[in-house]
């Protein structure tokens, strides 16, 4: 079976999974449904890891981290915060199982990051602004004390004396349990992820009966603190995958206490009742949908954090979150608009921390919808897309709508990812050029342009800052003769249509995050056709040439030639423009003045590990 066939099959299974896992709890209880959820993976918290090699772009990246440029590091205002933090979020985790229905939710990932601990995490160093910047490619052991690679075999040594919140000591049993649990529900996201990206488990013959899905060759216990992982084929991404937020290790003792015959892996318990992790915190109170409170795990191996009690509260209104953090009613919040971060940055009571990760804004003209399909002619389509790319006032958007807290995106792969190419000013704001291209495509001055693609959709809940962008684009497109309408969609609808149905005719994407910091991976996520293993090709881009190179680089162990292949792929993308890249924006977080130690991740969990926060 070729890789191609394999990934196709897995893809099909994955689709099953979405149906099952996304539908509801009972299904999970029955644990009878297979699936992977590529779509949600796209939204999923990206793994915190780095590519093997540091992204080449970093040294040259012109504006480093805009918010970090804040005139002077605000003097740590004498905020007497105490040992409790109030964190405001747009949503509160509806479930806490890394393999549960809600694993894709930012709020769930934020909570998991506090409750569970991982084998490894990327190394981070705190910069002057109090941001723990990940240093891609270097890892520190967490639950793992050390590890050794030998071909396809990785030998892991666990840290001794690590005690869970429930008081149980970590042993290889817990690793076995956690992996078995992942496999039992495979192929669901994490299992799938381990398999496809890190090539850990042989999942080519999925079995719907969980009882027959024990760990086989891929895992072996040596003693209480030593175990071996085996890969199917060489993949440099294992360390990248392990820090994925929902890959936390379970306290098997506690989990088994709560298992039932129907639910041997305690999914109901882990998803809806309590956590069972080795993380820094444990749950004290959970008001579904409204708030979740945590207190410190006294046994945490890294010691006590400065903030002992956490309260996550749901405050969907950005304005309310802003006021709350200003008034000191809350200490941490995210999910604000650039403007709000900008405003907060001026306030003495609040510090805004920022890091330029892989959050981007792009237009997604769908190949299924006219006029972007170009009537079936790829050339017309390409010309139209290029016209769009020349018609967008990048600088205005960055300055007016993002207050300079973003940079123009000169490519279709996040600039900090491994293998990303910066195409410079391949496209810049040039309305005359846009008009020319439009005419060339057969639509002089926009005459003759029609179709559902002229309705631009975006997430209504993000309207406060994405709508100005949409309006600016609308105005700019009108200027070159493309008249579009706006159609904000509720988040759930937008996400479903964007990731599952792929039928949004024209979307304004925001916060699209890739999970693997690797150009190949991001291509697989966004641009490869489903037939060749593409995951979230929401604009239905299909290029045989591109797919062919992708499949080659995927199994290419040679670093140099793989880099060349990835560059070739991006060269195709930048001409075809399956999406119109607009900008990369900063990941930001607002904290009560004086709080430091934010450990950002290139994902949606935003808040990161709170354990590292301090004043």
């Amino acid at each position: 079976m070729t890789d191609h066939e394999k990934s196709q099959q897995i893809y099909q299974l994955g689709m099953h999974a979405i149906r099952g896992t996304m539908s509801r709890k009972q299904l999970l209880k029955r644990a009878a449904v297979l699936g992977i959820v590529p779509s949600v993976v796209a939204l999923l918290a990206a793994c915190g890891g780095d590519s093997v090699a540091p992204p080449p772009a970093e040294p040259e990246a012109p504006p480093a981290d805009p918010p970090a440029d804040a005139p002077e590091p605000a003097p740590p205002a004498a905020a007497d915060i105490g040992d409790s933090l109030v964190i405001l979020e747009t949503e509160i985790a509806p479930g806490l199982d890394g393999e549960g229905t809600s694993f894709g939710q930012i709020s769930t990932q934020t909570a998991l990051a506090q409750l569970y601990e991982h084998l490894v995490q990327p190394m981070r160093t705190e910069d002057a602004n109090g941001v723990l910047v990940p240093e891609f490619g270097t890892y520190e052991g967490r639950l793992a004390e050390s590890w050794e690679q030998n071909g396809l075999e990785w030998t892991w040594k666990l840290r001794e004396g690590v005690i869970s919140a429930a008081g149980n000591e970590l042993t290889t049993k817990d690793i076995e349990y956690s992996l078995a649990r992942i496999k039992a529900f495979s192929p669901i996201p994490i299992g799938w992820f381990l398999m496809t990206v890190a090539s850990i488990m042989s999942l080519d013959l999925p079995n719907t009966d969980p009882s027959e899905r024990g760990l086989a060759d891929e895992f072996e216990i040596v003693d209480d603190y030593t175990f071996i992982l085996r890969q199917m084929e060489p993949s440099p991404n294992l360390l990248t995958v392990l820090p994925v937020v929902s890959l936390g290790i379970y306290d098997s003792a506690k989990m088994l206490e709560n298992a039932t015959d129907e639910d041997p892996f305690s999914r109901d318990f882990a998803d809806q009742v309590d956590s069972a992790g080795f993380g820094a915190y444990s749950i004290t109170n959970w008001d579904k949908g409204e708030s979740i409170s945590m207190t410190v795990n006294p046994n945490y191996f890294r010691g006590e954090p400065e903030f002992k009690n956490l309260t996550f509260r749901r405050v969907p209104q950005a304005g309310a979150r802003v006021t709350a953090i200003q008034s000191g009613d809350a200490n941490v919040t995210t999910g604000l608009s650039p403007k709000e971060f900008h405003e907060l940055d001026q306030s003495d009571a609040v510090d805004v921390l920022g890091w330029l990760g892989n959050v981007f804004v792009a237009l997604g003209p769908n190949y299924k919808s006219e006029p972007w399909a170009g009537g079936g002619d790829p050339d017309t389509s390409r010309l139209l897309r290029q016209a769009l790319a020349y018609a967008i006032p990048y600088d205005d958007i960055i300055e007016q709508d993002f207050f300079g807290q973003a940079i123009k995106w000169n490519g279709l792969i996040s600039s900090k990812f491994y293998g990303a190419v910066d195409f410079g000013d391949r496209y810049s704001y040039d309305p005359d050029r846009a008009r020319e291209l439009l005419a060339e495509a057969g639509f002089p001055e926009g005459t003759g342009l029609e179709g559902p693609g002229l309705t631009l959709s975006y997430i209504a809940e993000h309207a406060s800052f994405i709508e100005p962008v949409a309006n600016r684009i609308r105005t700019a497109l009108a200027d070159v003769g493309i008249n579009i309408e706006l159609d904000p969609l509720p988040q759930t609808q937008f996400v479903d249509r964007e990731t599952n149905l792929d039928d949004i005719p024209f979307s304004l994407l925001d916060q699209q995050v890739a999970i693997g910091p690797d150009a190949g991976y991001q291509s697989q996520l966004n641009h490869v056709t489903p037939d060749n293993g593409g995951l979230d090709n929401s604009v239905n881009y299909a290029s045989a040439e591109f797919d062919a190179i992708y499949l080659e680089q995927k199994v290419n162990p040679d670093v140099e030639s793989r880099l060349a292949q990835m560059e070739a792929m991006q060269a195709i993308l930048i001409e075809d423009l399956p999406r119109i890249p607009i900008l990369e924006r900063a990941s930001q977080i607002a904290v009560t003045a004086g709080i430091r130690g934010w450990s950002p991740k290139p994902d949606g969990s935003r808040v990161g590990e709170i354990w590292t926060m301090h004043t």
Partner: protein
Amino acid sequence: MSGFVLRRLLLFLPQLLAIAIVGFALLRLLPVDPVSRIVGSFGTDEARQSAKETIGLDRSFGEQLGSFLEGLLTLDFGESFVSGDSVRAELGDRIPVTLQLIGIGFVLALVIAIPLGRYIASKVGGRIEKVTTVYALFAGAQPDFWWGLIFLFVFFFKLGWFPAPLGQLDPTQIAPDGPTRFIFIDTLVHGQFDLFVSALKHYALPIITLTFVLTGPILKIMRQSALDVISSDYLLYAKASGFTPKRVRRMTARNSFAPVVTITGVLLVFALGGAVLIETVFALPGLGRYALSRTLDTDFPAIQGAIVFMAAFGLTVYLVMDILYALLDPRVRHSRD
């Protein structure tokens, strides 16, 4: 009288059932498809089928309706498509918030509007009467959500008298768990007076907003009906009969309350639905926002649960209103159209 009440009671259940069924059918008639949203466009037929089976949409309309109605008997609305939780439990958390908001808002509005309306009715043509009448007209025609924002701007942002709009309590405070889920009751039951005060502060602005808007129409009706009574022949005759002022006041009160009862009922039903606006402004986790967000999520069981509760609430209000009206005005006991 008892016949009247009985007749109204007999209507109650069929009406509730009708709304429940219409709501149920409406969700299935509207162009939304929870299955597609769950499965995605690449879903195979089996996948669609399995998802359908899971959420029960594979069965015939009649069967679905049957089990929905069966659930209704035990107030079981099923489990949410989105959260997987029991909709009844979710409603149990949300409903108290909205009921407290509009309940207190209405009590205050009535306590202000009734005596004031009665008072200005006796001062027709006077300055206070004119100002109050204009106020009544004005307040009855206002966007409450906007006033909520204005109040927030003034009393929170500018003056800092009230806490940030962050729900029922300060973010650090944790609401007691039960027994009623009404925070004002639960905090007292548990003797958590600090939480009670905090809740009071958090509810203050939304309630003031609601009261500000509600006072208008109630005042208008109260003024008019008190005016009608004051200028009525029977009141004049009561005076001409040498009745004591106390008796005359009782007569005025009793006869002018009936229209107030009606308008209160109508407003109450509307406020339950309109509460979503104030809840949104003040981030109160109430029923309105629940209904809104679950509507956005195409969460059928949750929407159905919300519809049934709201219908039951509305019908109960109308029932109580009719009975009160009949108690106050014997004329309707005999014939009511």
